[in-house]
């Protein structure tokens, strides 16, 4: 190792270190580049300003407070629900395909026999039980449902104190089958 190599090695090394320091240093002086979000403040629109120290630099519509308001995407698989219309009617016929397709035994359907006006016997659901604690959100129940009775909502705050609270009955009290769904 001769002297020239020795010195140029040092200089090259120092240069590479300075390039690295430029990256972190430039972010230090550009606080509006901060990407983290402040949960749960970001659920509301009027986020308290002091949660965003970098505010002094940001003007206009690109203020972090506005940008950082939480947006839940519509397809997010947060929780399985059974949509009901305003007349408290759902589309579930109680066929049990979702129960069959669920890989984890998350869904349990308790069905009853109903007698319609014209005397025919018909299957209907008594309870559509959904055990969220076991659900892996694969989406097979929603995809395979022949009458589109199930859907996912994008709620995500499911923390509870007791595991049994995660067991839900999806059909509402007193709900009936929607007309025209077989």
């Amino acid at each position: 190792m001769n002297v020239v190599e020795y010195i140029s090695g040092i200089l090259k090394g120092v240069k590479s270190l300075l390039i690295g320091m430029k990256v972190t240093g430039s972010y230090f002086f550009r606080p509006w580049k901060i990407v983290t979000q402040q949960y749960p403040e970001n659920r509301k629109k009027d986020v308290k300003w002091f949660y965003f120290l970098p505010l002094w630099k940001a003007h206009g519509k690109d203020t972090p407070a506005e940008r950082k308001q939480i947006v839940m995407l519509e397809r997010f698989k947060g929780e399985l629900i059974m949509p009901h219309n305003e007349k408290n009617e759902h589309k579930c016929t109680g066929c049990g395909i979702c129960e069959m397709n669920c890989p984890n035994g998350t869904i349990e359907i308790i069905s009853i026999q109903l007698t319609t006006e014209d005397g025919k016997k018909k299957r209907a659901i008594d309870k559509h039980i959904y055990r969220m604690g076991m659900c892996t959100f694969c989406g097979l129940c929603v995809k395979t449902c022949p009458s589109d009775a199930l859907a996912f909502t994008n709620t995500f705050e499911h923390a509870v104190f007791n595991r049994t609270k995660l067991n839900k009955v999806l059909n509402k009290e007193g709900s009936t089958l929607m007309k025209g769904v077989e």
Partner: protein
Amino acid sequence: MAEILEVKDIAQQEYLINMGPQHPSTHGVMRLVVSLNGEIVKNVQPHCGYIHRGIEKMCEKLTYPQIIHLTDRMDYLSAHMNNASVCLTVEKALGIEIPERVKYIRTIMDELQRIASHQLWWCAFGMDLGGLTCFFYGLRDREPILDIFEESTGSRLIQSYYTPGGLMNDIHPDFQKKVKEFIKYFRKILPEYDQLLTGNVIFQERTKGIGILSKEEAINRGLTGPSGRGSGFACDVRKRAPYHLYDKVDFKECLYEEGDTFARYKVRIDEMWESMKIIEQLIDNIPEGDYTAKMKAVIKLPEGEFFQRVETARGELICFIVSDGNKNPLRVKFRSPNLINLASLNVMSKDFKIADLVAISGSLDLVIPCMDR
């Protein structure tokens, strides 16, 4: 008085330390029993199985569409590719032709997943070497990809997006716009990775010439993926046995001959560029059409043995299904790239320092749940 040990005896004693099951740099519940001589690693004995869930056995009780949701949970950083391995096997067995649109979307999703996985690897690797800032930059840039996934598939990490015959649902209308935005953003930000870590003299000193594995040894040990390509083993399944649309797109197989930690690092950085190139070729010409082929309600594979290789972000994943004609498989076997890559760790890290062991195991990019399944 206790018997006096001679210096010779003390020198022969092994200094064993347990790295793991809880250790910051094993990235999961893996245990490495390391014999040391001072700082120098003499032997590494990996103990795995701490997160064994019996996925292969569980698959035997499930139907083919149901298997998909378990494969996500093996290598959660390349969930789409894991899904693809099962889907492609089933499609191959049934001999059905899937729509062009599905092929396009699957290729794009796979490549996005590869970028996301390499980003996470980059930040974890930087952290293994002590550069903690890398961790946050990598995660920051991974976030847009996860948002793209969430928008289309409904989940961020474990998507279960592919089904035998197609996709769970169509892509979101904003998908193409978002992906193009991301590519534009990431092309600008990726050189920053090089400035922060690749060019850094400390980083280069710590990775160059460390953990060398020759090409022959890599082939013998079945080292695949970016780790294998770092040793010059041309093992990219996307080139060797193209699936999806990889035979139609133009991309380079990143190969380095050195076989050291730095070569494995460079392969992954280059692959991020290549993945962006692939996505850019496809994103504008996604054809219209169905997002799934017509499938029977109950999928039954014909009797026989079927397999499909896919290239995950870590190497070659093989899904092997034995069917007896029922709706459930008789036997499922996944050839996990992680487990087989781990086998090279001992050879690579012998006679290097303990700090190098961390760098080498980081450069193999092991995902423990895939290893144990």
